[in-house]
């Protein structure tokens, strides 16, 4: 027998099926300080802006170079000039321009791949988590199997089969990316399924589809957003790795990975050809990871202002 809690007001965690983005579970407003402005700026200026406005920003032709200007060093080195701020490659193509168009490739590939992977993974994960039974058995097995596929080898074989192209790489990457999403969504669904409001909906006679879409999905959405952000980096690295070994975006397209491969043999004489594209990858992926981490903390109700 105990003293009842002498509190009123928003003391308790009442889980609404539709979490409001700006208020966390406890009804408190989320703080907007500590937003990772620098990573977001990097993403914007190194990826989004160039990708969308490439035609407006770029000065030179990314595919055709001026042979007489080949292997020009960056502007701050001896022999460099402002015409080619980051230098040129062995065919006289401007590195900066190719970087800009490369951003378009990275953005396109990662966006489409993540979307496909997210949709497939979520559907399977929701089904597995909610219905359980043999559906879960099959989906879990599929997830484990796809995790154990020899990624690069498979990519090499597929490329050998249907030739390297934008579509090919999207297919390859989607095949590998859906599994983490499915696993995550399945786990989340399993825990959400046990919550009271689900039982209420079931008792009220809602169909499973309706429950999944209206009740389960919004609660899973937060982790999905975080995961998607973090997986962008993974996808960009995978795409560039495959492009590097020739199993990704085909030449002469300026995928950052391809650019690094182009400059590999010339590293000692023209380090800038490989260096800058790789640096771009590093910075963009770093920014997505930082943003994803921040997003995770931002959306996590447990880390809020209570001691």
């Amino acid at each position: 027998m105990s003293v009842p809690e002498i509190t009123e007001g928003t003391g308790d965690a009442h889980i609404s099926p539709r979490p409001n983005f700006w208020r966390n579970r406890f009804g408190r407003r989320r703080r907007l300080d500590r937003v990772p402005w620098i990573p977001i700026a990097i993403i914007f200026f190194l990826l989004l802006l160039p990708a969308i406005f490439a035609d407006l920003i770029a000065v030179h032709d990314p595919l055709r170079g001026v042979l007489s200007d080949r292997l020009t060093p960056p502007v701050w080195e001896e022999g460099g000039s402002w015409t080619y701020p980051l230098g040129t490659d062995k065919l006289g193509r401007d590195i900066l321009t190719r970087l800009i168009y490369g951003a378009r490739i990275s953005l396109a590939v990662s966006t489409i791949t993540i979307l496909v992977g997210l949709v497939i993974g979520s559907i399977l994960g929701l089904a597995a988590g909610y219905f359980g039974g043999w559906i879960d058995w099959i989906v879990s097995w599929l997830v484990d199997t796809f995790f154990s596929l020899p990624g690069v080898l498979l990519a090499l074989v597929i490329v050998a089969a249907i030739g390297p192209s934008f579509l090919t790489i999207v297919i390859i990457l989607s095949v590998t990316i859906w599994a983490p999403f499915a696993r995550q969504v399945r786990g989340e669904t399993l825990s959400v399924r046990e919550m009271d409001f689900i039982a209420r909906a079931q008792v009220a006679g809602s169909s499973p589809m309706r429950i999944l879409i209206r009740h389960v999905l919004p609660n899973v959405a937060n982790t999905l957003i975080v995961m998607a952000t973090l997986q962008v980096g993974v996808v960009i690295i995978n795409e560039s790795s495959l492009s590097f070994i020739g199993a990704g975006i085909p030449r002469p397209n300026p995928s950052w990975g391809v650019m690094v491969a182009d400059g590999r043999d010339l590293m000692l004489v023209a380090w800038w050809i490989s260096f800058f594209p790789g640096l771009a990858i590093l910075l963009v992926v770093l920014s997505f990871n930082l943003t994803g981490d921040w997003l995770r903390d931002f959306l996590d109700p447990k880390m809020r202002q209570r001691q």
Partner: protein
Amino acid sequence: MARYILINSFRGLLTIIFVSVVVFSLARLTGDPMDVLAPTDMSDEDQDALRALWGLDKPLLEQYVIFVQSAAEGDFGPSYLYRSETAAEVILDRLPASLYLGFVATILTIVVGVPLGILSAVKRGTIYDAIGRGFALFGQSVPEFWLGIVLIWVVAVQVGPIPTSGMGTWQSYILPSIVISIFGIAALLRLFRSAMLETLGTEYIKLARLKGLSEWRVVCKHALKPAAIAPLTFFGQLSVRMITGATVVEIVFSWPGVGLLAYEAANARDFPIVQALALFVAACVVVMNLMIDIAYAYIDPRVRLGEGTAS
């Protein structure tokens, strides 16, 4: 427990079968090996003869059956690329190189990743933690192939004694193993850090301190064991990847392992090698997962004894 192992083994077997079918079909889709391998002056009859020798003229399903039957005996067919050897021989020939490198990389990963992760957790909020987390962030964001190239460049410019390609003396292991392990170190660091932080916040840690135990013992005995459970899963996958998935690094450093072999074989449409490799990788992963599941059960007594709750 035995039932547990049995079920998981079955699933693993299914996985291997699935992979074999997928790779088999895909490989056949890549086209005619003759296009790539046959010298241009080889006559059509000779090409046909070669195809017949390799069983490529038979229907697909029959080819698959033959493949499975032979594989069960350890015969994966002749290598198209290296005519004088069988696929199995070629793979076994190149395997040690990858194993050695993977082994070194794994050791490096554990030796650097685990202590840094623990340190980061125990010294949370301090400069050590910041360095650890910064390093982890870098490790997960840097593209391996680029890092390899940059390191080679730096070393070459410095003209150090470290070889930058091929497999040779122990020094030749340095750069490739560093590049391979960077990602693993980063991931292991983060995993251990968060697992330790979670464990260190539990009531039983509080109780351990209440008994008067030194912080060292609290961390090593009480916090570490429960914390190690989660990273264990990851570690299993990691070590497999280090051996079988180091393709890109092997290409960058011209390391004569199975990764480089995969690259060569795929480009050359050497079906037997490609199939055998795929099976090999899948089998490694499956076995590794099985071992992890067993280790899990051993470490966490709640799993080992079944989910027994108290009366």
